[in-house]
């Protein structure tokens, strides 16, 4: 039996579509309803599907509670445990971007406040800049921070840019592309290598991940 952790939220649909295109998880319909569902799968003793929040998922995989899972690269950048990341799903990609009220980055030598849900990533971004920033960690509605002047800039996910446009905010710079990543526990990869390589091959062949 192999245990797969699926993300709740925006990456779930993308993940299920990708796995189904690869001929996997076709018998799974309990998305988000049950904590733990056993799905019959050819070539396996069954897959135990675990439904987890994005931010918790890497910990479950790192500790071997789940053998593998799918989680956004934005989250991995914050809570990156010692995980294997064989694939990134092609659909549902977005960007992690610096946003603000104007298109301009802070001036060299300047000091600003930067609002974000991603403090570790923000620190790495700021470390390479000629300006400094006090990181203001928020848990949601990041775009409100520059809008209401809690911070001069924000670092957040941009998907279509519509929310930004509606709030008269602009995307100043893309920092990273964000993708849902297929992650695997280091020991599980040794134990279930044949099955996991089969899944990886099928996801690649279906051109839903690379």
């Amino acid at each position, binding site marked *: 039996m192999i245990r797969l952790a699926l993300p709740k939220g925006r990456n779930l649909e993308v993940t299920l579509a990708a796995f189904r295109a690869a001929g996997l998880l076709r018998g799974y319909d309990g998305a988000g309803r049950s904590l733990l569902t056993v799905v019959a799968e050819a070539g396996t003793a069954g897959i135990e599907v675990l439904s987890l929040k994005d931010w918790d998922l890497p*910990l479950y995989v*790192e*500790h*071997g*509670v789940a053998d593998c899972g799918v989680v956004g690269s934005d989250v991995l950048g914050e*809570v990156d*445990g*010692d*995980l*294997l*990341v*064989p*694939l*990134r799903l092609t659909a549902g990609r977005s960007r992690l971007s610096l946003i603000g009220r104007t298109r301009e980055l802070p001036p060299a030598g300047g000091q600003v406040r930067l609002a974000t849900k991603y403090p570790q990533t923000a620190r790495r971004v700021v470390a390479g800049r000629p300006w400094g920033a006090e990181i203001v960690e928020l848990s949601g509605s990041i775009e409100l921070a520059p809008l209401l002047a809690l911070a001069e800039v924000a670092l957040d996910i941009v998907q279509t840019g519509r929310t930004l446009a509606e709030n008269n905010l602009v995307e100043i710079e893309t920092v990273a592309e964000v993708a849902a990543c297929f992650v*695997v*526990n*280091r*020991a*599980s*990869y*040794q*134990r279930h*290598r044949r099955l996991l*390589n089969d899944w*990886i091959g099928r996801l*690649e062949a279906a051109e839903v991940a*690379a």
Partner: protein
Amino acid sequence: MRISAALPTGVAALLFESARRRRLAERRLVALLEGAGYAEAILPILDYLEPYEALLTPAGRNELYRFIDRDGEQLALRGDFTPMLARLLAPRLAALDLPLRLYYRGDVVRYEEERAGRQREFYQVGAELLGIPGEAAESEILRLFLAALAPEAEGDIQVVLGFAGALDRLLLDAALPGAADPAALAAAVARRERAPVRRACPRLLAVVETGLPERADDLGPEAAPRLASLLALRDELAARFPAARLTVDLAEFARHGLDPRLAAEAGARPYYDGVVFHAFAGAGAIPVGGGGRYDSLFRRLGAEVAAVGFSLSLERLLAGHPAATDQETSR
């Protein structure tokens, strides 16, 4: 006045049954090591920082607890037994009879970001074998490592074997001008990232998928025969420890490069320069310890001697067992 029982982040107090279990496991390991002819080395918890400065990677430096003593000396809490023992033995080696078989036990303290399962204080038991070159020493240390693991892990053991520098040639060939940075490519191999590896070097893809190259010759004239002898060692150990799962996976140790262009991506314990291994144990497949060959550590300390060793974290070895319920931790 009420006194809080809270402890600093990352340390734990063991009381009653959990203390008893840890001591039992420790006594069993010590009996095993002494039975195999290893003598105990008792090392201080504090040492000067200076002897280690040149040996530390940036990551290693960050995890050390360093401070200035009242007399102005820079000191560090013990973060790793192996370099401490090596630096104490290196100046004395000429006067000692080889081979030397030593074991140690005690705490190491390393700074870790606050996260579940990441303690800052670990109780380690380990062994070092000095003065026997080649496979005989590697085989002895691995047999001891597996024998130490077996009863505590109740048979559920996965040991992954590799050797430092195995992929250097493939990584450096892939990183010709205009191609990927070899250290970044090594990190991608270690994380089994298919797309960047396929773009940079299709020959590395087999290593990512299976742990081994399609043809041993792909590794180059130095590494190819070493792979053959490692596979033979794996088979010898598998016959002796049928309950353990033993795999050779070169991608697992892709960060353990020997070429200076790859050294920036060195693993957490970057001194391994030959066989390297680690183990996962228990139902949760927790990383419990590892080891390898580290002759070059002694060379950097001015001594020539063959050296192989391993260490085990007792907390982690016992963590997979439900009986460990009365462990009082800070979190």
